Every structure is written in C-alpha cells, then in structure tokens.
C-alpha cells in the first residue's frame, strides 16, 4: 500500500463539465485517482469516456469549453484546484509534462525541433541553453532517433510521424519531470512503427523513474505500458486493479465485455467457385503508381481480408474493383465476365451486384436524408418498388441489422457510430448484392461496437451467402472473420492464401513483421517481441 510520502498525485472526487448545445454537461462525474512516484497508470475507456479530460486535469488544465467544478487535485502536496495560474505554469513543462496524440499538429511549424525540445527546460530556469541542447541530443539518442546530433535542426514537417512522436517524448523528458501524461501517443501510427515507439517511450520512463498516466483505448498497448489500469466509462470509474489482475480477472461486467471482444474466431472455409478475380491489376494516380500487378480471387460466399498499412494500396484496390479508378493494365473478372474498367460503362445490374461500405459512416450517408430514404433508395432504384412495398422491404432490412422501425425517420446525426455503420450495411444489402467491399468499416469504432458489427457481417454472410472483401489494417479483425487473406505492402501483394496458412509460420518477412507487431493482451509481450524482432533482423 502506498504511504503518504510515496504519493505523487492524488485526485479526489474530481468533477469536470463541458459546454455543448448551449449548456454545461458533466464529463467527469467524481473520479478518484492516486499515483505513486515512478508508477505508470493506464487509463482506458472508449471514446467519450473522458480519459483525456481527466489526464489534462492532472495538470490543473481544462480545455476551452471545459471547467473543473469540484474535487481536489494534489500534486506533490500542491493543490492544483486552488493554485494560481503562475504556480501551475511553474509545474507544467517542468514537473509535469504532456505528450499529445498528434505530434504533427502539436509541434509549432515555425521552429526547429531542438528549439522546441529545450524550450521548457530553459524557460523554467532548470538548465542553461548549452546544457539543455546537449541533454536534448542525448535524449534523441535514447529515443533511437536517426543522427541525434543533427536531428533537432529539422523542422516538424521534415520528419516522419513515428520520429515526431519520439521527439515529443524527448521534449517531455527534457526537464526530467516527475510525471508525464501520455494522451493516446501511438494511435495515429502504423502497427509496425508503434512497436518501436512504445519501446522507446517505456525505456525512457523506466530509465528516469518517471511516473506516467498512459491514456489509450487499446487494451493490449496499455498492458505493455502500465503497472496499474483504471477503466473509465461515461466519466465514471468502472474499476481499477494492477495490470496482471485486471487482465486475468476483471470484476465488472463492462470490463469483462471489453476483454471478451477479441474472442470471435471464425473457422475458415474455402470455395472453388470464384465470384471475383483480379488479374494483374496496375493502377496509377496521375503518373504515380499505386498498384503493381495485383492479382487475387474472391471465393463465393466467403470473406477475403486485404491487410496492409497506410500506403499499401488496399483502398485503391477497392476503387479499381468498383470502377472509380480505371486500371491501366489487368482485368477485373466478375461472375465469369470481364467488367469494363470505367464506372460509366458498367451496367446497372453490375453496379447492383457489387456494393461498397465505407470507413466513415458519417460521410457515407447524406446528413439530410432519413434512414427511410437512405435504405429505401436502392430498393426503389434497383427493384422499382414503391409505397408500401418499399417500406416493408426497408423495415425488413432494419430488422436484419438488429434495429427496429423506430429508426425509420431519424437523420444520421441522431444515430450513434455503430448504428450509422449498420444503416450503411443495410443500404448495401438493399441492393441484394453478390459482393460487398468493406473498406476499414470498423476502424473508426470502439472495440465493443466493432465486435457487434463483425458478428453481424458474419451472420449475414451465413444467411445470405454474400461474398465479402474486408479491407483493414487490424490483424485482430482479420483473425476474427477472414477465410482468406491477402497481405499488401507498397502497392503490391506480399502473400495470399487461406487464413490458417498465412497466420501460421513460415511467413514472408513483411507478414512476420506485421503479425509480430500487433500488441497482444499479455504482460511482457513487448519485451518478447522486441527480442524476437531483434533476432530476426540480425
């Protein structure tokens, strides 16, 4: 148990309001938090849980449009609720530092990285300029940044995302703070980049014995970083325990349901009958090649997962299949016939049989059409149904996606993220398609909601026999639903085949890297992976 002297941060019954729709709403509804010196606390929850707001409150800071309304925040004995702005300024950047989610936006574009790294140390009078610069170079080295001597001479826009995120950790470390708040620092990064960033961040806080609050929605990531985990939901604490206990024996039903998310496993099946065949597809944006000789098949009634990181060309492949981006070489063969490359030359029947679902359901639905209009349009357009007949079909589709008629007259703005994505699925189903292309359809959603959508897609496939191409960067999703897998990297195919073949060794080099980089929900995964990746590299 923590003794008084050991405690670095103590928050009691903290309450924070946010301003929206012309009135104040409670965002944090009385949360307690205790952090000992050198300890790392993981703060997890879904979007809207209030984790960032709580993290910033630990610095005595409320974003514009938010206000601290009650409770106590004691940092090393200093009451941040009552401290003057000047007292708080003396703590921020000196004893408490912050690492933001988007490093690209959080660095000032007008200054060199070194000047920004050393700024708080010099401004707070902790270091002399030349000391601070030497320190910064050391930190860059510790963060595995390339050419640490000169790295700081660059401007933020001259450096990659992963390097910027490490530079930001170096900036936070520069004044040797007692506490660092990490606010989703790796969410915007590709998985293979994430592993190294996580490792350097963790080594840095271990080396200087810094306490940290690590905010994330990713359970597997937090398991690598935190000593203890606190689960938040709707601004309230659900439960808190040390990491091992939390992973092995969660107490609350909500936490258990979070943990259960990754339990879906579909038994992969093959089918010799192909609904779609891509042969040697090459495509360019202007003169820039984005797809190089891509070929794969989609078995009828099965799911093909196309995986890859940003820039791998996986979404471009979807644009070629739908005709939005005509290929310059190769053929798209659908149901035994070659489809014309251009959208305008495809028949209405061809268009009906291939449907697409997008990542952002928000922008995929016209905000001024009701659910009835959105789902009803394909019913009228393709099948000429009108009036009561069309309404009956729309209602049937709504039930198919586990919603009811009360949703008929809602606008997209009145739906949650998961409900919106379901409406998009219903719109695709309304065309009674042979093939649905799902482009990252779950990546903007919270884990539990993702789970619901994936189960729904699997059920629909079983009931309707529709074939699915599932484009994603998330290996967990692939494991859950794929029959076959296509791995893409920089516009080409690395590997393809049935799920069990791809996911079990031997792997192609890139597949191995990709698979090993996906964090797993067990303590010590990061160390093991780094060791393995280090071996593979040497």
């Amino acid at each position, binding site marked *: 148990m923590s003794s008084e002297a050991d405690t670095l941060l103590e928050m009691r019954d903290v309450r924070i309001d946010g301003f929206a729709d012309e009135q104040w709403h*409670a965002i944090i509804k009385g949360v307690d938090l205790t952090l000992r010196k050198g300890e790392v606390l993981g703060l997890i929850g879904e979007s809207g849980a209030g984790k960032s707001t709580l993290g910033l409150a630990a610095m005595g800071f409320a974003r514009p449009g938010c206000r601290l309304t009650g409770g106590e925040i004691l940092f090393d004995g200093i009451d941040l609720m009552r401290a003057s702005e000047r007292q708080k300024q003396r703590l921020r950047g000196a004893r408490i530092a912050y690492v933001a989610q988007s490093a690209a936006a959080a660095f000032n574009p007008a200054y060199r990285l070194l000047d920004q790294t050393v700024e708080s140390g010099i401004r707070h009078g902790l270091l002399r300029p030349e000391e601070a610069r030497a320190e910064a170079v050391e930190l860059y080295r510790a963060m595995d940044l390339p050419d640490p001597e000169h790295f700081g001479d660059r401007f933020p826009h001259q450096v990659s995302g992963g390097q910027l995120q490490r530079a930001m950790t170096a900036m936070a470390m520069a004044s040797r703070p007692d506490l660092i708040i990490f606010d989703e620092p790796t969410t915007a990064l590709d998985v293979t980049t994430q592993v190294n960033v996580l490792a350097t961040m963790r080594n840095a806080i271990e080396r200087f014995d810094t306490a940290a609050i690590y905010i994330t929605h990713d359970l597997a990531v937090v398991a690598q970083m935190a000593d203890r985990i606190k689960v938040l*939901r*709707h601004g309230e604490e659900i439960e808190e325990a040390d990491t091992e206990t939390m992973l092995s024996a969660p107490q*609350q*039903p*909500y936490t258990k*349901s979070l943990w259960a998310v990754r339990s879906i496993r579909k038994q992969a099946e093959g089918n010799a009958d192909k609904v779609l065949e891509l042969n040697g597809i090459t495509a360019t944006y202007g003169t820039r090649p984005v797809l190089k000789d891509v070929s794969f098949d989609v078995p009828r009634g099965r799911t093909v997962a196309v995986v890859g990181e940003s820039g791998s060309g996986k979404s471009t492949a979807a644009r070629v299949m*739908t*005709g*939005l981006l005509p290929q310059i070489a190769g053929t798209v063969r659908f149901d035994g016939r070659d489809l014309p490359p251009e*959208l305008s030359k*495809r028949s*209405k029947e061809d*268009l*009906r049989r291939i*449907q*697409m679902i*997008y990542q*952002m359901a928000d*922008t*995929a*639905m*016209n*905000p*001024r*059409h009701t659910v009835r209009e959105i789902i009803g*349009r*394909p019913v009228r*357009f*393709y099948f000429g149904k009108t009036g009561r007949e069309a309404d009956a079909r729309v209602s049937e589709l709504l039930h198919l996606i*586990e*919603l*009811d008629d*009360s949703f008929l*007259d*809602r*606008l997209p703005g*009145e*739906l*949650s*993220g*998961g*409900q919106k994505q*379901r409406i998009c699925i219903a*719109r695709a189903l309304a*065309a009674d398609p042979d093939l649905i292309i799902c482009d990252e359809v779950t990546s903007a959603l919270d884990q*539990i*909601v993702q*789970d*619901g959508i994936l189960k729904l897609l699997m059920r629909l496939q079983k009931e309707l026999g529709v074939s699915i191409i599932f484009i994603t960067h998330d290996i967990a999703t692939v494991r859950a639903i794929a029959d076959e897998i296509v791995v893409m990297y920089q516009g080409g195919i690395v590997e393809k085949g049935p799920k069990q073949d791809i996911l079990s060794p031997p792997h192609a080099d890139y597949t191995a890297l990709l698979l090993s980089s996906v964090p797993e929900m067990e303590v010590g995964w990061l160390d093991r992976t780094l060791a393995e990746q280090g071996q593979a590299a040497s």
Partner: protein
Amino acid sequence: MSEPSQTYSVQQEAAPASPRRGWRERALIELRKAPLTAWFGMTVILCYLVVALFAPWIAPHGQAEVFATPYAPWGGKFLLGTDQIGRDVLSRLIYGARNTIGIALATTFLAFLIGGGLGLMAAISRGWVDQVLSRIVDVLMAIPSLIFALMLLSIFGSSAASLIVIIAVLDSTRVFRLTRAVAMNVVVMEYVEAARLRGERLGWVMRREILPNIMPPLVAEFGLRFCFVFLTIAALSFLGVGIQPPTADWGSMVRENAALIQFAQYDLKAGLTPLLPAAAIALLTVAVNFVVDWFLMKTSGLRDEF
C-alpha cells in the same frame, strides 16, 4: 442521467431521437428560442417589406409630386419636411423602400442565378469547365467591383436595367466562388460517391444529394450579398450614377439633401433630414446581418467569426 447499462446493445447506443415534427412546427420552436437580436432583425425586415409592398397606400404624397415649398421644415403638412425642389421627404422615403429594396433584391436574385448555376456546374464537372470559369472569375475579381461598376455604367449609361445587370454580373463572381467551394466539399463526400456507384443520374445526384447540403450556406450568403448589393447600389446612387431621378431612392436622397446638414446649428431637424435615408439603409443592413448571424449559428452550429 440514468445509469448506463452494463451490457452491450445496439439499440441503446444512442438516446432515442426527439419526436419528428413537421417543418412548420420546428420553425415555430426555433423562432421561440431565437435571440433578441434575431427578433429585432426579423421585425425590421418585415416592416420594411410591408412599407415597400404597400408604398402607394401608405405614403401621404406621390414620390415625384412637387409642392411650392422647397426645404419646408418638419411638422404640419409635411411630417419630415420637403426637399430642395419641394417634394415630401416622408413619401419619398416610403417609395424609396420600394425602389431601393426592389432593385437590390432583383439584382441579388440574378447574381445567384448566374453565380450559383455556374458554380454548381464547375464543382460537378470539374476539369476544363471549372478551370476556364475559375480563371475568368479571378480576372473579374481583380478589379474592385465598385470601380468596375462605375466603368461599365459610364459605357452603358445609368438605367435601372443596366444597373441590375451590371451589379448582378459583378456580384455573381463572389456567389460563384462560394457555391463552387461549398459544392466541392459536398461532391467529394462518400455519399455522393455512393450515389455514383449506385448508377444514379447526374440530375438526381445534384438535386437530392448536393443541393440540400449546400442550401444553408447559400441562404446565409444570400442575406450577406443582399446587404452588399444594397450598399453598392446606394453608394452608386449617392454618387449620382445609380438610380436616376425622379425615382425616389435612398442613396440619391442623401445626395440631394446633403446641403441641409450645414443648417444643423440652427435647426437640428433639418440637419437630420439627409441622415434619414442613410439611417434607413443602415438599419436594414444591421437587421439582415443579425438574422444571418442567427441563421448561421442554427444551421452550422458555428458562429461566423467575421
């Protein structure tokens, strides 16, 4: 707030939507919540419209009726006195509402017809059509519009028709830019792509997917452009190259009575006479601005910072 359930269900992801209402009912509810400034603005606009529509019945005298008493003082037969050749100022103010607002409205409508139509076309077709139209607009906008209007008026002469056409064409460049920009934002949306993938015809996509989403900013812009056109026409008339006498018009009334301002020391009311039409212009512009502000806040959830 109720306790959130501990297990997951799709139906409960979001609170149930508010009951659906007809647009009449919704408009009434919005009106009741409207801020004081918006109410003020709407009341003023309504008054102006009534005066403009019923000018011949409201005005005590004709707009061009000349009496034998030039520069008559306020009160008596002429509530606000008479002007330099003996016309009733009040009657001219009332008719002025009709003429000035009428011409400004006609101009704004024409500007939106031209600019809005071409802007929509440019956004949808893109490619060379967009390039050509945008470059032409760039060149036209490189000449300050008041200066351009002055030049064109010197060539075509100052009639109501040429005034309307010239200002409308010049102003349509701004409408074009806005329509194109807003429509571009909508055209790249995935729901428009989805409609194209469905095989919808261009007309349907334009009418059903694009138009409803660009209407709110366009309506707000209509208010702002109306103000701008209104002020431009007033300025031109004031300069003597806009609406021509004997038609009553607020801009030229200021010009005609400007000399009276020198008498303010002796008779403050007389000194105020030339300011009346100017104040009438200012009041309407303020009113429209207030309503547009409120409308923007309602439709975008954002306050326009300008």
